[in-house]
């Protein structure tokens, strides 16, 4: 409950930030700081129990089928990170009002910062690996947005930071999935408590590698370190909070967390120690080269995180305790240094140490605070940084694997620390040393300085009083090193080897600082590979590759999109022809009339394809349809044949309506342009022929077909087997089809515009007496025929589809002879027909469910049964209405006169508006 309250409290603060900011402006930071402290106090109430080895938990089911739960857990190591997140968070919040511009609300900044704090808190409290991943990604997203708030200059670094850390996030996701597979649970405590589940699964290597990758991206380890200095374009509070104290520590947290699982594995240790120490030395070296205060601090963070990674890699209880202590110490002094850098920037307008000089006279308190924090960074007695560095040295010396591993690790650690001392001195000397006078610079307001001063003061006090932290450090270290007993931490170790190392560090650091002028010159001359530039080049390359790959799609020509899948079809056919062999011989089922139809098609299809006239193309495709209908009739499918014939009629009507006003010829294209299309068409045709030969003609009647033929009559009372399949057996398929038709009907009506609103009455048959009289006679007869076909559909050719097509033809004829606005026209509004049909089919389908029977089960209706009407008839009627709706939509909406040519007499096509380009008539 406590943990949920804490998280919800943070969320509430985040939500409250924007409205608060509208009222308080930049001063919103103060109430937020108080809120952070309140949440910290809430969690601190559990501290005694946690230090005693107990844990605080909360859990809800989230995805029970996957075993994923929303569970939180506060133990020692989570407690340390909570303290850092909330404590440094409170300091940064209190620092923001002084840093941010006075007259702007900054609601977004406060919102994002607090959302970040919430995510970070969630990340360290998550007791489920999936939840951990979710919070991990949330911190990445918050970081991206917070960097982006710095404006246009931040676009590139923000993108770099996002891509690098999100790539790490993907690695973490993969690791989480593998962990779940290996351990059989997503519960973090179980996974860690029973390491054998993972270690014996064979997935240990990939999991460990992915976790290290995730941690290295988040914590800016080589070779991913470049995003962190780039992220310094963000405002200083963001750098102080996310990019030194907390978010970059998420990687450290992850490694600490999974240390119980992998600490015994030499590969894990070797990888972490090598990466960490390499990063520590490189980062410190790069920091020494920088002139920008924030740049120095960013590389310093990279370097310090490297030390942490290395010491976690060592994995002994002492080493892990050192890691926890140094994480805490680093958060304190690095956040302080960032805050002070921000103050210097605000007061002097620059962060370049070559331009800053002699500030100590103008800003003595700021200078003193900076010195305190820098001493802690450099590891000088008696600061907290000194104590934590001592423990780091102890930890590094314990590196195992080879007799020389410990000393080498220690030597590298000392090297990094020497460089650290040198650049810490450089910060102080560059920023505040020197003798120049600055009359225009003054000490910042006390409130602006206070948060940094508090942190620096804590670093001073907690050095000698480090035993106060001991219960926290010990409990955290024993959480992540269950095998051993972590030592108590105390300030003075006597005249120990690590003290000698510290002394050596300081002496060598002083030497390096003493020779700063030649060292500077040498460093500036060095040309180092810029990982960020390399990354950008890779990024640009990927974008360029995408451009090339996506190039052919960047056109509105359907041919360009269709040709590749068609080539694939032809290739598939070719492969099939080569691979498939030894098929049993086909039965010869051809009859003479089949060949007549095929022969006619062989004439009509090429003609339809090659004609240049639009009307001829429509007509010839219509004839093709009629021939195919004949083929169906020969194949013993009268229902299909009848439907197809009527469909062809209606297609022709619609197509001709569409063609009005369109040039009568297709645009002429050069003959050679058609050659690839023809080749592809021939290939597809051959492939289709071969496939048909391969797939047909080798079996008897299907078992399902036989079943339908045998039992239809007794089960449904219908004798038209095809119709009974549609309405009785496969009602759900037909319902799906009806939905498609309803959709196209409404879509057609919408696409062609709502004409009824205008209530225009269009002229009818245009003076054609034969058509007019014919229409009067035929239309009622066609409706009667339609009703008859619908009625008998269950037993003989007919049914909803066919009947509706006949009725549709009647509507079309009526439209042509009488125009719109007639009684029939008003009666057959497409949206009403389609809507009624859809409601009817669904209602009929749902009827049996009232009796507790399955959806669409045919039922007998009380009164109508006497008339021979069952629910299937009503279902067919619904289909009828839907098809009719589609036809009415097409006919009535397309029949609307062109809005441009409403008053023009019919006759020559309307040129101009409808001819968009390449007017064919003018072509030579």
């Amino acid at each position, binding site marked *: 409950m406590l943990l949920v309250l804490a998280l919800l409290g943070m969320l509430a603060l985040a939500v409250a930030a924007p409205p608060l900011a509208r009222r308080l402006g930049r001063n919103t930071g103060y109430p937020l700081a108080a809120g952070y402290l309140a949440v910290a106090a809430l969690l601190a109430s559990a501290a005694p129990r946690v230090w005693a080895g107990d844990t605080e938990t909360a859990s809800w089911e989230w995805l029970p089928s996957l075993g994923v739960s929303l569970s939180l857990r506060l133990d020692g190591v989570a407690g340390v990170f909570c303290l850092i997140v909330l404590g440094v968070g409170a300091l940064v919040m209190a620092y923001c009002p002084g840093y941010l511009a006075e007259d702007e609300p900054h609601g977004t900044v406060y919102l994002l910062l607090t959302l970040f704090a919430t995510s970070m808190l969630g990340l360290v409290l998550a007791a489920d690996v999936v939840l951990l991943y979710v919070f991990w990604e949330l911190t990445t997203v918050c970081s991206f947005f917070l960097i982006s708030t710095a404006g246009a200059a931040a676009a590139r670094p923000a993108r770099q930071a996002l891509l690098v850390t999100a790539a790490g996030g993907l690695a973490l996701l993969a690791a989480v999935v593998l962990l779940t597979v290996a351990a059989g649970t997503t519960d973090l405590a179980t996974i860690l408590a029973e390491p054998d589940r993972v270690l014996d699964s064979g997935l240990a290597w990939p999991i460990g590698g992915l976790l290290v990758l995730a941690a290295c991206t988040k914590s800016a380890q080589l070779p991913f370190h470049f995003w962190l200095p780039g992220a310094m374009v963000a405002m200083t509070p963001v750098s102080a909070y996310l990019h030194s104290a907390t978010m970059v520590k998420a990687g450290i947290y992850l490694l600490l967390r999974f240390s119980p699982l992998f600490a015994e594995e030499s590969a894990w240790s070797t990888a972490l120690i090598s990466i960490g120490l390499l990063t520590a030395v490189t980062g410190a070296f790069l920091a020494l080269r920088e002139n920008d205060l924030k740049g120095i601090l960013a590389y310093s963070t990279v370097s310090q995180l490297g030390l942490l990674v290395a010491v976690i890699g060592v994995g002994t209880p002492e080493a892990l305790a050192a890691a926890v202590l140094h994480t805490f110490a680093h958060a304190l002094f690095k956040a302080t240094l960032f805050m002070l850098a921000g103050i210097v920037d605000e007061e002097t307008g620059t962060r370049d140490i070559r331009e800053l000089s002699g500030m100590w006279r103008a800003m003595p308190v700021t200078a003193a605070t900076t010195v305190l924090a820098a001493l802690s960074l450099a590891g000088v007695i008696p600061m907290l940084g000194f104590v934590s560095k001592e423990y780091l040295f102890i930890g590094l010396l314990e590196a195992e694997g080879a007799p020389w591993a410990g000393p080498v690790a220690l030597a590298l650690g000392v090297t990094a620390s020497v460089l650290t001392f040198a650049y810490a001195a450089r910060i102080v000397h560059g920023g505040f040393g020197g003798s120049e006078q600055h009359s225009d610079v003054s000490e910042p307001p006390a409130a602006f300085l206070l948060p940094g001063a508090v942190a620096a003061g804590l670093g001073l006090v907690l050095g000698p009083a480090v035993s106060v932290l001991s219960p926290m450090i010990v409990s955290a270290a024993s959480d992540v090193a269950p095998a051993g007993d972590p030592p108590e931490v105390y300030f003075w170790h006597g005249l120990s080897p690590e003290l000698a190392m510290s002394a050596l560090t300081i002496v060598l650091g002083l030497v390096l600082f003493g020779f700063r002028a030649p060292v500077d010159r040498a460093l500036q001359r060095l040309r180092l590979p810029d990982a960020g530039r390399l990354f950008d080049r890779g990024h640009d390359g990927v974008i360029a590759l995408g451009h090339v790959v996506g190039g052919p799609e960047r056109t509105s020509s359907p041919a360009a999109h269709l040709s590749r899948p068609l080539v694939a079809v032809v290739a598939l056919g070719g492969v099939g022809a080569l691979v498939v062999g030894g098929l049993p011989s086909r039965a010869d089922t051809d009859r003479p009339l089949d060949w007549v139809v095929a022969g006619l098609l062989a004439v009509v299809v090429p003609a339809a394809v090659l004609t240049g006239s639009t009307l001829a193309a429509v007509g010839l495709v219509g004839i093709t349809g009629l021939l195919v209908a004949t083929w169906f009739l020969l194949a013993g499918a009268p229902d299909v044949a009848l439907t197809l014939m009527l469909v062809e009629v209606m297609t022709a009507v619609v197509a001709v309506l569409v063609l009005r006003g369109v040039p009568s010829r297709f645009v002429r294209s050069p003959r050679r342009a058609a050659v690839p299309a023809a080749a592809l068409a021939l290939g597809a045709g051959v492939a289709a022929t071969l496939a048909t030969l391969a797939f047909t003609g080798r079996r008897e009647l299907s078992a399902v077909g036989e079943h339908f033929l045998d039992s239809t009559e007794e089960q449904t009372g219908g004798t038209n087997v095809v119709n009974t399949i549609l309405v009785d057996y496969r009602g759900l398929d037909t319902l799906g089809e009806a939905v498609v038709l309803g959709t196209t009907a409404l879509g057609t009506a919408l696409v062609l515009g709502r004409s009824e609103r205008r209530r225009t009455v269009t002229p009818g048959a245009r003076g054609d007496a034969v058509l007019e009289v014919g229409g009067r006679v035929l239309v009622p007869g066609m409706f009667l025929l339609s009703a008859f076909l619908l009625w008998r559909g269950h037993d003989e050719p007919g049914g909803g589809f066919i009947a509706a097509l006949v009725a549709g033809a009647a509507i079309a004829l009526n439209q042509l002879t009488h125009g719109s606005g007639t009684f029939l026209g008003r009666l057959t509004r497409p949206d009403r027909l389609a809507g009624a049909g859809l409601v009817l089919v669904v209602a009929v389908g749902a009827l049996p469910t009232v009796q507790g029977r399955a959806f669409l089960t045919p039922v007998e209706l009380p009164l109508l049964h006497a008339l021979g009407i069952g629910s299937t008839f009503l279902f067919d009627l619904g289909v009828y209405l839907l098809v009719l709706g589609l036809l009415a939509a097409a006919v009535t909406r397309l029949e609307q006169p062109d809005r441009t040519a409403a008053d023009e007499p019919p006759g020559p096509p309307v040129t101009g508006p409808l001819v968009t*380009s390449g007017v064919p008539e003018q072509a030579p």
Partner: protein
Amino acid sequence: MSAALVVGLLVAGGVFLLLRRGLLRIVLGFVLLGHAVNVLLVSAGGMQRRGAPLLGETEADVAADPLPQAFVLTAVVITFGITVYMLALARAGDPGATTGHPPARSDAPSLADGSDRDDADRDDATADRGRRTDASEGGAS
């Protein structure tokens, strides 16, 4: 054998139309492809037994397989619905048809004239359109 040739013929014709210019041809190509698939489905049911599956008229042991017929009947109607919708889109997609103004998008395909594959064609089209704009403005004033 004849069914396979019919399918091949229809597929070849449909594919050729799909790859040509002009939305109307694409719609017609789609119709031909629909026919091809329907013929394939029915012939997959077997062409040996060809009695209509109407139990009042045909004995059950010579009737054709009704199941592919039911599929094809559904397919025919759906193809029709899609065809009508595509024709409606082709009609509505030409802004000139609805507003009397030249198309706003230079690459909008139209019914009788298709695509923007050929740069030279596109330039010509733009020039044409420019002339028409002038003409229509002149007419309006």
